[in-house]
């Protein structure tokens, strides 16, 4: 710093800089280098005061510092996603949240502007077409999964499930009833999960955690290549299988999870078309597979069905 030399110099200082100069002496040579960064000090500063109060203050300060570092307020950057969703991810998060008693702070939103709530900026999906009749009493509680925060985020919005327009490779656009169910299922699921999480003492970080995002999937549309069965099985789509197709309702026992089925065939495919819904990797658990009665496009062959469903889901993802 200029040590105040630049300031308050309105008037000329008649003797400035000439303190040690005697008349008749030549002026000192000009300085060519910048002044040293740590100029030598003529005097050492005094020792710090060391009263007992000072020692106490010091101890308090250290405690405060340690607390703040561990508190939920010290936001740390999330662990780097290595691209692959691991099975252990959700359990690590759960473990951390359970062990750390500090991570249980939730703000009272009345004292904060609404836009800071997580999920408040989520756009509603374009809803086109009649909504399916889906009973509100939901299926098996997946609260064991707990760890997924994306569902919580979606769950806070009580958005009615919407349908999506799906563009099939053959150019035909039709409202995909399956997507509807997918979304409604995952939406409901997401909500339930969100509530399930809250019931367990929701972790704020998880609520905020919207890392399960649309683009976060391994399997991008661009990697997909149409299999040989694609486009050829359309005629089978409307063929009704051995089950009733009339009711769109999901089975009471909550067993038919569309995702489950897909899990079997295709690993780690994101469900719900971009919604921050269920993490499919969670489907590694043993789940029984049931055939949904309303899957119109299910062809008889299991393999064909797998492929079909996978394609449908993926194509659903494409739609923005």
């Amino acid at each position, binding site marked *: 710093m200029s040590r105040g030399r630049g300031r308050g110099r309105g008037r000329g200082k008649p003797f400035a800089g000439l303190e040690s100069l005697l008349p008749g002496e030549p002026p000192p040579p000009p300085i060519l280098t910048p002044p040293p960064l740590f100029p030598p000090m003529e005097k050492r500063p005094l020792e710090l*005061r060391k009263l007992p109060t000072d020692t106490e203050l*010091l101890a308090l300060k250290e405690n405060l510092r340690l607390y703040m570092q561990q508190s939920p307020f010290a936001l740390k950057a999330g662990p780097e996603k290595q691209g692959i969703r691991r099975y252990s991810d959700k359990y690590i998060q759960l473990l951390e949240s359970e062990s750390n008693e500090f991570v249980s702070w939730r703000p009272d*939103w009345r004292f904060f502007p609404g836009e800071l709530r997580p999920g408040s900026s989520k756009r509603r999906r374009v809803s086109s077409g009649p909504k399916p009749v889906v009973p509100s009493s939901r299926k098996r509680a997946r609260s064991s999964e707990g760890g997924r925060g994306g569902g919580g985020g979606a769950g806070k919005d009580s958005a009615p499930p919407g349908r999506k327009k799906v563009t099939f490779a053959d150019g035909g656009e039709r409202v995909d009833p399956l997507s509807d169910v997918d979304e409604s299922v995952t939406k409901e699921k997401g909500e339930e999960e969100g509530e399930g999480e809250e019931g367990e003492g929701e972790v704020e970080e998880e609520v905020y955690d919207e890392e399960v995002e649309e683009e976060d999937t391994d399997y991008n549309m661009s990697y997909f290549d149409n299999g040989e069965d694609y486009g050829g099985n359309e005629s089978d789509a409307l063929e009704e299988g051995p089950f009733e197709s009339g009711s769109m309702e999901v089975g009471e026992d909550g067993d038919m999870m569309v995702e489950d089925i897909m899990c079997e065939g295709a690993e780690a495919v994101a469900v719900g078309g971009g919604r921050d819904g269920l993490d499919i990797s969670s489907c590694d658990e043993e789940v029984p597979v049931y055939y949904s009665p309303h899957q119109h496009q299910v062809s008889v062959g299991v393999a064909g069905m797998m492929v079909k469903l996978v394609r449908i889901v993926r194509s659903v993802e494409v739609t923005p």
Partner: protein
Amino acid sequence: MSKQQVRLASLLLEEAFGDQVEAVGTYLLKNGGSNLGEISKGTGLQINKVKKCLVVLIQHQLALFEPHSSGKYVLYSVSVESVQLRGRFPRYILASRELYGQIGELICEYILHQGRTLMSQCINRVAERLEVTLGAAPAEVSKVVKTKFVGMVEGQYLTRVKPPSTESALGQVNSGDSARTPIFGKFELPSSLTAIKYTGNKRKRDEEDPGNQPSSKRAKKNTGEGEEKPVDDGVFWSVNFDNFHQHFQDKAIVSAVRERVDETAACVMRSLLRMAINLSQDKSLQTKSSPTLYKGRMAEYLPDKPKLSEMDLEHYLKALTDDQAHFLSKEDDSGGGGYAVDYQQCAQGLCQATVEGIVRERFSSKCLRVFRLLLVKRVLEQKQVVDMAMIPSKEARELLYSLLAENFISLQEIPRTMDYAPSRTFYLFSVNLPSVARLLLERTYQALGNIVSRRMFEMKTHKRLLEKYAQYQEQMAQLKGRGEVEEEEIEEILTPDEKTTAEQVKKTIQKLEAGELQLDETIMSLSNYIRMA
């Protein structure tokens, strides 16, 4: 909002909350009110992260939000002073200990940790902590805790957090309370005060969702098991810093009186200050002088031990009034004599003492003599300085110009003739205390910033070592004297070199922290004076 202040503030934020919050905070400090999008663009963080950071900042009363005049978005801003106050937290906690005992200390500490809290929540946590340390049953202790809490509110050391207004143009800011309490009482206790009691060991889960959001209803349904709304929902308390500052100022005045006059005078002063606090309406307002204190009413505030007779009291009051530092000023003759504590003069005296100390350390005590002379005599010529200070002319000239170079004193030229001939102009030296104080305050912020920055550097460089050392100490403490073999094993975690380095580093960090705390006192006295002048 100078450059140094901003730098200090960002260092404090980084230390307390991490670098994301620091980035957001610094951006807001530098750019004033901004909305969410601007912050996100400016800091390069994702909107979600920015939201979280803002929530943290608002929770800790560091950031404010208000709707933009166009009503389209919300503006956020951060005030530098509130961030700088974080450095004073240990002092607040210590002061609560002095005023309200260990329980008061724990209450204050908890509220400072959380930023703001409900009374019930605070009482629960403090009771649990006391259970751990004292072994007392929480249900009983909580009653005492509650009394202390209420005492702190009545003493105005804790204040209510103002709920945001419902008239916000965005309509998104909900506040259930403000509809019921149109006039916001800063120290109003909640109506459910008697109902607040210790609620057991379960973790507090607040169901604060206002009823107008359907998702919350579902949340309430599904969370079944024993999720009560806290009794005093929506009544948040935070620490009232102003009152603590007043407390510190009072302490400083009392110690100044003790040094200048004597111990008894200090007692008198303390009682006068207490009387002033009781008589003033808003205790946290820092006015220039206290309300008039009449001698007739002083008797109840005076301490019992040094029993003062009327004559003695009169004597001391006169001494305090006539003192050069002008602690008291005589306002009135009625009522046995009306006196007022002159806060402004006291602040000036304190600031002056601080500056004098700085001059003494920076230059020499001869310089200090010259400086003091100028303070008293206001304006002097060089020749007069030489005569009055009894310093040889050459030396005096050097001292004066070194002070001038550092801007502690200023020079005024008064020409005697039309051409400004040096031999025929008066050169008058004087001290302009407010400007000196401002300069020094700036330097102090810089110094504090340097200290904090150096400390963080030390901690980062030796992070691994310090962690190891902390682990080592923990294990040693646990296995105290249990077995030599185990102790030896633990000793092997650290090599002796590492041990010495770790201890040295710890010492350095402690020294730096102590320096920060004491520097803060300088900041307080300088800024107090500047504010009051």
